[in-house]
């Protein structure tokens, strides 16, 4: 048999910031004390009920006496026109095919946001709107003054709009582009009077995905993650701060906000794991972008430059060069590259070491200045060389040959 489940107690709330109509209603008399799949159809009109501008459906499962919610975003600021909303329902449940008939419409709910403008009033909306580059924005004014006497400007250039009704006009701006951090001014003036009003809207550059995201350690105590942030999407007037960056490591479940826009230090705890799965998320008011890397800690070792470089002469043509490195983890084996430049030649050698390194250079030229360089890297899993450490020394003069 047929059952009318007309939506009741329809209430419409407004949110000017998001230009949203928030609907709330319920359905009385649900049979069989169980959940029913239902579809609701909404009609939204503007200026007058007959001027329907949007129709859409919303499907959900409904329990007895449940209050239902649904939201709709208007491209036109709500202040610039009266809106009307009504709703009808239908059971959409395979268990009850016979009930699949549209109910009656609820009565129209009228939505006023702004009082009717007085004879010398000129109000422009929305206020301080933030949109992303490439999107659209509709600006509007309401006024008790004849719209023929009102002139509007965007970027200080004349712009013409569409008259919605005798007291309201709208200006749809498509594919807006970033202009200035201080925003884009749109203003209107009543000809031959001082009456003017306007609004500033803000176009944010599109947030970019962080590039070249990578992490490394120099001491097995701290992981230093770096990336290229791309464009700063911050805006003046506290409309949108520069994008924020957070690091999330999934194996440990830990999350950390990054103080800098292009780097972040992550504490390596003693019990911490070998494998790391980092997600770096950039976020601003409009969007989030994430990048991800997985790595083994020991594959990301970037040693600090060697130190304590010494030279011990063994005669005029032989030198023992020694150096130290900062201890890494449980004495990681490093491979060091040693270079000796002098007398127009460059000699290169590779030396494996853990804490102390040394190399014996022979066949040098007496009484000659040499430049010695040393750098090291992880011997097992190369990631990056350390910086060079450079020291000079001079070989002693050869002893006089016996006459």
């Amino acid at each position, binding site marked *: 048999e047929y059952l009318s489940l007309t939506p009741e107690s329809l209430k419409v709330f407004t949110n000017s910031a998001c230009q949203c109509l928030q609907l709330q209603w319920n359905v009385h008399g649900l049979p069989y004390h169980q959940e029913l799949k239902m579809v609701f159809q909404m009609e939204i009109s503007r200026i007058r009920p007959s001027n329907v501008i949007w129709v859409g459906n919303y499907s959900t499962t409904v329990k007895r006496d449940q209050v239902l919610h649904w939201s709709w975003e208007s491209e036109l600021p709500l202040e610039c026109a009266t809106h009307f909303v009504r709703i009808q329902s239908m059971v959409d449940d395979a268990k009850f095919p016979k009930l699949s008939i549209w109910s009656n419409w609820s009565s129209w709910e009228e939505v006023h946001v702004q009082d009717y403008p007085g004879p010398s009033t000129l109000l*422009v909306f929305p*206020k*301080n709107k933030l949109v992303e580059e490439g999107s659209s924005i509709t600006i509007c004014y309401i006024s008790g003054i004849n719209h023929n006497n009102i002139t509007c*400007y965007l*970027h*200080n250039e004349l712009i013409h709009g569409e008259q919605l009704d005798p007291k309201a006009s709208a200006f749809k701006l498509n594919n807006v582009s970033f*202009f*200035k*951090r*201080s*925003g*884009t*001014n*749109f*203003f209107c*003036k009543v000809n031959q009077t*001082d009456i*003017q*009003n*306007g*609004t*500033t809207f*803000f176009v944010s550059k599109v947030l970019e995905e962080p590039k070249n995201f990578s992490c490394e350690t120099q001491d097995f105590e701290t992981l230093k993650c770096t990336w290229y942030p791309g464009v700063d999407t*911050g*805006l*003046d*007037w*506290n*409309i949108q*701060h*520069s994008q924020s960056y957070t690091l999330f490591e999934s194996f440990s479940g830990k999350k950390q906000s990054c103080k800098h826009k292009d780097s972040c230090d992550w504490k390596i705890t003693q019990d911490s794991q070998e494998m790391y799965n980092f997600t770096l998320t950039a976020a601003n008011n409009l969007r989030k972008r994430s990048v991800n890397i997985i790595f083994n800690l020991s594959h990301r070792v970037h040693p600090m430059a060697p130190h304590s470089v010494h030279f011990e002469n063994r005669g005029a043509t032989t030198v023992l060069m020694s150096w130290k490195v900062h201890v890494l983890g449980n004495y990681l084996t490093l491979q060091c590259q040693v270079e000796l430049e002098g007398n127009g030649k460059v000699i290169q050698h590779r030396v494996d070491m853990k804490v102390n390194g040394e190399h014996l250079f022979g066949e040098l030229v007496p009484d000659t200045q040499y430049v010695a360089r040393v750098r090291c890297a992880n011997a097992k899993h190369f990631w990056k060389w350390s910086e060079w450490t450079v020291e000079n020394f001079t070989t002693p003069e050869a002893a006089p040959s016996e006459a």
Partner: protein
Amino acid sequence: MRGCSGPYQQLLSQLQRQANLTEDTSSLLEPYIQHQDLNTPILRGSCTEHPGAFPSKDALRGLSKQSFLWTVNTTLGRVLKGLVTLQKQLLKPQDLEELETAKRNIQGIRNNIHCMSWLLNGSSETVEPMPTGPGPWLPLTSALGVFQAKLEGCRFLRGYHRFMGSVGWVFREWGESPSRSRR
């Protein structure tokens, strides 16, 4: 008084120079107009000083030297707060460096005013604080919307430059010695 140096005449000509510098709208108002994209005849036309926001020239001329110094110092204290408010509206203060420069200039003027007041303390003039109106202030953005707040910032700076012009005028009327005046 520590930090105060130089005779009356040198201090006075320094104050006159500082007033001339800060009267010049290209030192702050014009860069602000450019930054906030208010550079149109219509919006410039709206950028007028709020009556009563800053003491008028005639009001300043009618004050004793000490009251004049006190009034200028107090008003500039409020201007500093206003400039800090304008700076907070920027994502990066360096986008409008003239604001920081203006704050330093105002601090310099206030230091010299303290010295001049100390110098004049020898004279018998008493300080009658000038009845002050609401004084220069800047409404919170959220109350107005950014567009109106931009215009308010513009009106505020318009008043500040005009006020400094009037201050410079009064300093030019001061005589060569602390007790004499050209008026």
